[in-house]
């Protein structure tokens, strides 16, 4: 009669009142159901069928419980437990959905991390190593700042990624297979999630170190790159000065064709000066605003050259003279900066 007792448990579990009264109610209901079962068995039903019929005729446990609670009141704790069980049932139904989402999210994160590391190992780190070997990134400077370990880390990462990828993949597959085959625990899904989370965190640490190792040496090396571009910047300044002088001489001879050529050469030299760290290498670091001033002068010079070229096309002598004067005036500080020794 386990079914009978289970039914009585459901009906009587939260009835209020003294324990003795609750026991009496339970006993009374039990006796009624036993009488009903006996009557049904007397007309030929089996034990199980008779019990089912008796319970069906008696009424659903939920409705019975509510009617008895309406008469006797209810106990708070069973009601709280009931609510908790209902909540648990609701959340358990959604459990598979949240677990699936967790697996998916972690899987996507891990795949993206692996792709990012692979991309850097294949494309970015080799370029970084080339810059290092070409001297564009100053190794001595990195050593002074104690950043050599970052470069070593990138070397090791490239080496491991290039030589052991297949082995790592096989090891991962073997670990997964072993886990799924051997681990028998009720917490297995959570262990699996924890393992995936740990892998994601570990890869994130690798990515963090990789990014820092690429960015910090670059930032440290930038001033060196600026210094290295000074000879080139001086060369372009001299070219521009020569072109400007030749332009002034052609103007005196009223040779419009020669003037047009020299103006083009001047423009080209000025455009090269405006690119990259060329102007930076000419500026004085100890003078705040010097670089901004040089940039402004360069822009003025380029604008003046534009006016010169227009005047040449128009064969406008007056405008040409004025534009040349503006050009020379704007270019003077840049020429002086190139003549100064490097700071």
């Amino acid at each position: 009669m386990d079914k009978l007792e289970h039914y009585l448990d459901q009906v009587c579990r939260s009835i209020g009142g003294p324990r003795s009264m609750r026991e009496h109610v339970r006993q009374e209901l039990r006796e009624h159901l036993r009488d009903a079962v006996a009557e049904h068995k007397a007309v030929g039903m089996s034990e199980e069928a008779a019990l089912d019929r008796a319970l069906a005729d008696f009424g659903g446990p939920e409705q019975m419980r509510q009617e008895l609670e309406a008469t006797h009141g209810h106990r708070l704790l069973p009601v709280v437990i009931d609510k908790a069980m209902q909540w648990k049932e609701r959340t358990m139904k959604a459990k598979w959905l949240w677990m699936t989402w967790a697996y998916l999210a972690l899987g996507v994160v891990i795949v993206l991390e692996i792709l990012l590391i692979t991309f850097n190992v294949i494309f970015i780190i080799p370029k970084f190593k080339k810059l290092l070997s070409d001297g564009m990134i100053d190794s001595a400077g990195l050593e002074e700042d104690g950043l050599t370990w970052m470069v070593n880390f990138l070397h090791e990462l490239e080496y491991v990624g290039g030589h052991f990828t297949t082995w790592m993949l096989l090891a991962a597959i073997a670990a997964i297979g072993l886990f799924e085959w051997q681990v028998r625990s009720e917490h297995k899904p959570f262990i699996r999630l924890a393992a995936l989370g740990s892998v994601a965190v570990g890869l994130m640490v690798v990515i963090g170190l990789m990014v820092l190792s690429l960015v910090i040496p670059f930032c440290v090396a930038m001033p060196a790159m600026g210094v290295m571009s000074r000879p080139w910047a001086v060369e372009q300044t001299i070219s521009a000065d020569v072109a400007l002088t030749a332009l002034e001489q052609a103007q005196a001879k009223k040779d419009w064709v020669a003037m047009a050529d020299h103006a083009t050469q001047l423009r080209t030299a000025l455009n090269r000066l405006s690119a990259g760290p060329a102007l930076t290498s000419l500026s004085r670091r100890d003078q705040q605003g010097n670089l901004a001033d040089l940039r402004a002068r360069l822009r003025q010079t380029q604008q003046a050259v534009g006016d010169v070229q227009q005047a040449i096309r128009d064969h406008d002598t007056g405008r040409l003279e004025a534009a040349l004067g503006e050009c020379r005036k704007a270019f003077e500080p840049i020429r002086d900066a190139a003549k100064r020794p490097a700071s």
Partner: protein
Amino acid sequence: MDTELLKGTLSLLILALLCRKSMYGYEIAATVHRDTDGAFTWREGSLYPSLHKMEQAGLIVGAWEEKETGRKRRYYRITEAGKAALADKRQSWSELCRAVNAILEKS
């Protein structure tokens, strides 16, 4: 039979039966079923909340008794207050039947 019409009559039936003799719950249900030739189809379990309410109201009194079968059952008997309540309910029921029949006969 329309179960809506049965609501409210259960306590009347219980008091009327207990006026004959003291009975236990299953006996009350079986007697109703037998005397009405099975016309009443109701949830047997709804008997007990009604019995307990009437016991709380003092209309009936329950006591555990062991009869010749050896099993203990809770027998209910009507009290004086229950008899008075029964008389009131009979009166109300008669008036209700008269009024309803009056309408039904005219329609």
